[in-house]
C-alpha cells in the first residue's frame, strides 16, 4: 500500500530529475553546435518524442484497457493535418510572419492542441460504435476506421489536393506554417521535449487515478467490473478518446518535424516504422501495461532502425556484413521474431521503471555492502 508520503516523494524526485535533465539539455543545446548534433541528434530527438507519445498512448488502450486497436495512426493523421493546416492559416492570416517570433510558439501550441482535440472528437465518433465489439472484430473495425480517415483526408479538397501548398494528393508539400528545418528543430527542441514530458505525465496520472484502476479491472474481467458498478462502455470510450487525443498531439509533432505530409505515412502498413501495426509492435515489445516499457521500446525500435539503416552502411564493416544489413526491415523482422520468442511478455512486462524504487534499491545494495565491509573489518 502506497501511502501519501511516498507518493509525494515520488512526484518530487521525478520532477527534480526531469528539471535537472531539461536544464542540462538546454545548456547543451545552447553550446553544442557540431553538424552531427543538428543534423542527426536533433531530428532523431523529434522522431523519438512522437514515437514515445504514440506508443504510450496506444498502451492505454492495448495494455491497460486490453482492447486491440489497429487504427491508431488514423488519429495521428488527423492531428498532423489539423496542426499543419491551422498553422498555415495562422501564417496566411498574418498572425506570425517570422518563425523566430515568440508568437510563433503560441501558434505551435495552439495548433498541436487543436490537432489533439480534433483527434479526440473523431475518437468519440469512432469509439462509440467500435467499442461495442471485442477482440479481433474490434481490431478490424479500428483498422477500417484508420483506412477511412486516411482515404477521406486524401479526398478532402483543402487537405489532399491543394490545401497544403498545392502539392499532389500523395505528397502534399507545405512550405510554410509548421514544418521545421534543422535550425528551427534545434531552436524548438525544447518544445518537443516539454510536450512529451507533459503528455507522459498526463498518462501516468491517468493510469494511477480511479479511472486507471477502473479500466484495469475491465481488462481483467469485464463482467466482474460491470457487476461492481463500473460503467464499462463509458470507461472504454473515455480511454479510447484520451488515447486518441495524445495520438493527435503526436501527429502535430510529426507535422512539425517533416517538411511534407502524405497519408502514406499513416497507413496500416508501409515500409517504415511509422504505421499502425508498428505502434502495436512497439507496445507489445515494451510490455503491455507498462508505460515506461513503451517509452523504452519506442527508443530501442528507433535506434535499431536507425543503426541498421545508417550506421552499418557508414561503418567500415566487411562487405558481406554490409550486404546483410542492406535490407533494414529484414533484419528488423528477424530481431522482432527473436524478441517475441524469448520475451513473449515484452521487455518490461507489466512492471514500471520508477526512479524512487531504483534509488531505494541502490541504497539497499550500498547499505548491505557497507554492512558487509563493516563486518569483515
Amino acid at each position: 500500500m502506497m501511502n501519501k508520503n511516498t507518493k509525494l516523494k515520488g512526484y518530487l524526485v521525478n520532477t527534480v530529475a526531469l528539471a535537472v535533465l531539461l536544464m542540462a539539455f538546454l545548456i547543451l543545446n545552447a553550446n553544442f553546435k557540431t553538424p552531427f548534433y543538428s543534423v542527426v541528434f536533433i531530428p532523431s530527438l523529434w522522431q523519438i518524442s512522437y514515437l514515445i507519445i504514440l506508443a504510450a498512448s496506444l498502451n492505454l488502450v492495448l495494455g491497460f484497457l486490453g482492447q486491440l486497436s489497429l487504427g491508431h495512426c488514423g488519429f495521428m493523421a488527423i492531428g498532423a493535418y489539423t496542426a499543419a493546416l491551422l498553422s498555415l492559416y495562422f501564417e496566411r492570416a498574418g498572425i506570425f510572419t517570422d518563425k523566430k517570433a515568440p508568437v510563433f510558439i503560441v501558434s505551435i501550441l495552439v495548433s498541436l492542441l487543436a490537432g489533439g482535440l480534433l483527434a479526440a472528437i473523431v475518437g468519440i465518433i469512432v469509439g462509440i460504435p467500435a467499442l461495442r465489439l471485442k477482440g479481433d472484430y474490434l481490431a478490424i473495425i479500428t483498422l477500417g476506421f484508420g483506412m477511412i480517415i486516411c482515404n477521406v483526408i486524401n479526398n478532402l479538397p483543402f487537405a489532399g489536393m491543394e490545401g497544403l501548398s498545392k502539392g499532389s494528393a500523395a505528397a502534399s508539400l507545405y512550405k510554410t506554417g509548421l514544418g521545421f528545418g534543422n535550425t528551427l528543430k534545434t531552436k524548438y527542441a525544447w518544445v518537443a521535449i516539454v510536450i512529451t514530458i507533459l503528455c507522459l505525465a498526463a498518462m501516468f496520472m491517468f493510469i494511477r487515478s480511479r479511472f486507471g484502476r477502473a479500466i484495469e479491472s475491465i481488462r481483467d474481467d469485464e463482467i466482474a467490473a460491470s457487476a461492481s458498478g463500473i460503467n464499462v462502455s463509458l470507461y472504454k470510450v473515455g480511454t479510447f478518446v484520451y488515447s486518441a487525443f495524445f495520438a493527435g498531439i503526436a501527429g502535430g509533432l510529426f507535422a512539425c518535424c517533416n517538411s511534407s505530409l502524405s497519408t502514406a505515412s499513416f497507413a496500416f502498413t508501409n515500409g517504415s516504422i511509422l504505421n499502425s501495426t508498428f505502434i502495436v509492435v512497439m507496445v507489445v515489445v515494451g510490455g503491455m501495461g507498462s508505460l515506461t516499457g513503451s517509452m523504452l521500446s519506442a527508443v530501442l525500435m528507433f535506434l535499431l532502425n536507425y543503426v541498421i539503416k545508417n550506421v552499418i552502411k557508414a561503418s567500415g564493416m566487411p562487405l558481406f556484413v554490409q550486404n546483410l544489413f542492406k535490407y533494414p526491415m529484414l533484419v528488423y523482422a528477424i530481431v522482432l521474431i527473436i524478441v517475441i520468442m524469448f520475451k513473449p511478455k515484452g521487455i518490461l512486462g507489466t512492471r514500471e521503471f520508477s526512479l524512487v524504487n531504483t534509488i531505494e534499491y541502490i541504497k539497499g545494495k550500498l547499505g548491505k555492502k557497507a554492512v558487509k565491509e563493516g563486518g569483515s573489518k
Partner: protein
Amino acid sequence: MSGSLQTLSDFLQCLIVGLRLGSVYALVALGYTMVYGIIRLINFAHGDFIMVGGYTLFFTIPAMLAVNDKLPIWLAVIVAIAVCALVGVTVELVAYRPVRKKGTNMTALITAIAMSLFLENLAQAIPAIGPNYKIMRRMFSNKAVLNFLNISLDWTTLLTILIGASVMIGLQLFVKKTKLGRAMRAVSEDKQASVLVGINVNRTIIITFAIGSGLAAVAALMYFAQYSTIMTTSGTMLGLKAFVAAVLGGIGIIPGAMLGGLVIGLVESFTTGYISSSLADAFVFLILIIVLIIKPAGILGKNVGEKV
C-alpha cells in the same frame, strides 16, 4: 443506343467486374478464415503468400515454356500451389507453433506481423526479384468471349469466375464430406475434445495451412492474370481486403468467407463505377463497419452470449 439500355449495360459490366474481383477476394479470404478458425490467429502473412505465389508463377512460366511451348500457361499454378503450401507450412512450423505454445494471442499476432515483414523483405533481398516491379506474362487470352450491348466479357474474367466457383465448391465438398475435412471442423470447434476422439491436431493444423496457402496461389493466378505488374508488396492490400471479407462474412466460417469476398468485390466495383475510384477503399471499410455494428459476428456468424 438509348439511355436506359446504356444504364443497364453499365450495371451489368459493374456486376461482372465485381464478380471477378469477388472471386479473388473470396479465395484469399478462405485462407484467412480457415487458419483463423483452427488456431484463432489473424495470419497477417497470408497476403504475402499471394506475392510468393505470384513470383513463383513469374519464374515458372518461362521455364515451363522453354521445356515445351505447347503447354497451357496456367499449368504453372501447380508449382505455385506447391511452393505456397510449403511456405505456409514452414511459417507455421518455424514461427507460429513455438510462439503459440509459449505466448499469448497478442504475441502470436505480432509474430504474424513480423513474418509478413520478413517475407516481403526477404523477397526484396533476392537479387532476381529486387524492389522494383516486374511485368507478368499474359496467362489467359484477352480475346472477348462475348461483346454484347457494350458489355465485354473476356476470357480472363470468365475463367477467373469459373475457377473461383469450382475451387469454392470443391473446398466445401472437401470440408463437409471427407474425413480430413471433418477433422478440420472438429479442431476448430474444440481442440481438447478432438484430441479425445483421436484426431492428430498438429497434423490437421499443418494441412489447414497447406490448403489455405495453396488457395492463395490460385488467387495469385487469378489476380495477376488481370493485373500484370507484380511487386513484393502487391499482396498486402489484397490480403487486407480479403481479411475484411472474411470478417464481414463471419470469420472462421467457410461459406462466410465466400459470401464476404463477393460482397467486397461487388461493393468495390460498383463504387468505382458509380461514385469515385479513389473512394472505393473507404466504401469497402464503411460497409464492413455498418455490418459489424448491426451484426457484430459477421453476416453468417452466430452471436454467442458470454457465460459467466
